[in-house]
């Protein structure tokens, strides 16, 4: 049995580990550091101990898989009705980098039915191979059939790394795949790096509600699997259409049976849902003060041709519905420009928008943490600043003349003609 061991002669009883332990499992008792029942071997104390007085001793009688026999980096290309999910192009960029680092190939994997168009679209990306798991029973996403098909393909082809978007689809079926092939899965990664010669994948992700970041590895099982948050990695632009090897795969009978039936799919694409793909997002937080207050946020968003986001505080207050929420428990965005109005900048919010190209923050509290991530910070009442800013934008547009307003949507009705 693995356990946490204390090297008592190194321990100088500084107590840091006792404070840091997320499970209150460490205590100093009569001049000795003791491990209590609550220890879950999370390793926080080992990491934090300045005297290196703690270590986790593992027992290794596990069966070791032949790790060297796994090769190739796979990206699951999520598609729906032939449209490839944008996170795929972000994963392909990172996948290429990891594959090059490992000196191995990058493969895209499609699961579904009628995949011709999607497969062709993938040929514009630097992949060596495309696996096409196609069957009429895979036409609609069902976690059972998709997981069984992918698990079967993994067992056959033995990739060393499998990446998938942390979407409602990826998060529902990748854990099934991990359980089926018995390997580790790291959820919602924001960073991926190869550590060493053995090709250990360092998977970094937020935990404890975004309050800490953790790096996770999967040392003795393959493939190393991770779901990755949409919009944290840069997007790979398509290149020229190339000839790519296609490997067709028909899942076995057992894999395509599922007792679950999809009766109906309802996808209402409101602007809210689109915030994840918008170039400009203007968000409001508690500082907006009311549902009506969001009118101003909407006006600014419209002026910039963008979508409206919100902090959890604004969503919880009922001023705007949940699909607009940005952050740890909402959406992750990577717009060219993010504007935060009356948002304090809690880590849980930052997780969702910190990889934006540029960030402008408006807040009346000069100490608000949002200013630490801002490119331009404006200290003051948003109800004063936002209208002034809109005014300046309109004046600027008017000065440029009506033909020169490319890039933004039409000004809102009633404010159309430049009146200056």
């Amino acid at each position, binding site marked *: 049995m693995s356990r946490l061991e204390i090297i008592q002669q190194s321990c100088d009883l500084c107590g840091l580990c006792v404070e840091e332990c997320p499970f209150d499992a460490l205590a100093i008792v009569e001049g000795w550091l003791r491990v209590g029942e609550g220890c879950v071997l999370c390793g926080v104390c080992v990491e934090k101990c300045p005297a290196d007085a703690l270590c986790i001793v593992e027992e290794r009688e596990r069966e070791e898989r032949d790790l060297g026999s796994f090769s190739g980096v796979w990206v699951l290309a999520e598609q729906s009705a032939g449209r490839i999910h944008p996170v795929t192009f972000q994963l392909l960029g990172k996948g290429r980098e990891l594959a090059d680092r490992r000196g191995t190939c990058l493969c895209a994997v499609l699961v579904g039915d009628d995949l011709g168009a999607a497969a062709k679209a993938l040929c514009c990306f630097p992949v060596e191979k495309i696996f096409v798991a196609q069957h009429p029973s895979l036409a609609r996403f069902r976690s059972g059939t998709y997981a069984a098909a992918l698990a079967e393909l993994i067992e056959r082809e033995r990739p060393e790394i499998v990446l998938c978007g942390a979407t409602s689809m990826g998060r529902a079926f990748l854990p099934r795949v991990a359980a089926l092939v018995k390997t580790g*899965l790291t959820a919602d990664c924001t960073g991926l790096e190869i550590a060493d010669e053995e090709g250990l994948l360092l998977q970094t992700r937020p935990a404890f509600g975004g309050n800490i970041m953790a790096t996770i590895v999967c040392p003795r099982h393959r493939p190393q699997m991770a779901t990755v948050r949409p919009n944290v990695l840069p997007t790979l632009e398509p290149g020229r259409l190339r000839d790519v090897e296609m490997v067709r795969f028909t899942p076995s009978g057992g894999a395509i049976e599922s007792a679950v039936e999809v009766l109906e799919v309802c996808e209402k694409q409101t602007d809210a849902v689109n915030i994840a793909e918008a170039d400009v997002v203007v968000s409001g937080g508690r500082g907006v003060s009311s549902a009506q207050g969001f009118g101003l946020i909407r006006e600014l968003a419209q002026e910039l041709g963008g979508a409206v986001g919100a902090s959890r505080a604004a969503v919880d207050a009922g001023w705007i519905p949940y699909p607009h929420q940005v952050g740890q428990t909402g959406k992750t965005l990577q717009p060219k420009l993010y504007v935060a109005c009356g948002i304090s900048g809690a880590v849980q919010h930052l997780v969702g928008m910190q990889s934006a190209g540029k960030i402008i923050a408006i807040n009346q509290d000069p100490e608000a943490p949002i200013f630490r991530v801002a490119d331009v910070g404006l200290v003051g009442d948003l109800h004063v600043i936002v209208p002034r800013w809109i005014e300046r934008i309109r004046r600027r547009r008017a000065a440029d003349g009506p033909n020169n307003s490319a890039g933004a949507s039409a000004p809102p009705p009633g404010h159309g003609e430049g009146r200056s």
Partner: protein
Amino acid sequence: MKIAVCVKQVPDTTRVEVDPETKTLVREGVESVLNPLDTFAVEEALRIRQGLGGTVTAITLGPPQAERMLRQVLAFGVDEGVLVSGREFAGSDTWSTSYALARAVETLGGFDLILCGKQAVDGDTGHVGPELSVHLGLPQATYVRRMREIEPDHAVVERLTDAGYEVLRVPLPAVMTVVKDLNEPRLPNLEDLFRGRFAPLKRLGRQEIAADPAQIGLDGSPTRVVEIFSPSVERAGRIYEEDLGAGIAQAVRLLEEEGLL
């Protein structure tokens, strides 16, 4: 209907903070609580029991201290609490946690419906529900936001997706994970609180659930945490306080540079 709810004891993450000076976790006075997202699973189980009759069992894998959280759950009116515990389970990642829960479910004779919260707010993975369903060989529905229909042999549920929702017909027994839109959890009354405090708990160890020692705890976990650090994001931006006019001008200039004007 025999219903199980898998619940987890988590640190109160709303109060976990990073000290800006030392860049370490400030945990003073942070308590362990029932994973908030599990309350919706507990509530739904109780509502189903109300409609169809049967029992609700809450199962947790955790240290002995998780008993307090389990009693909190019993106070909602859950029939039975089961604490799967033992030093061998320490270090479990989602794979070995779901394996141990599956063994516990089987030891308890199986259930018609097993409900889990969407994810636990400490690890935030959402893996345990789907992995549990694989270990049990049962169908799953994740992110359930509405139960349209529930009968002894099947359920029709709405599953939240990124772009809306889908309606699934799921035969029972099955594993489902639920989101907070599903219901409004009740508050326990005094009588329930009293009952919860003294209700008997079942404790199961590794041997009782016949778990393979190589599949549980750190030994059975494919993943390892190798580093923990506080998130740091800083930009060398400029903050305008007195000179707001200049700041707004700068904001307009930035729009121009980004091609937004």
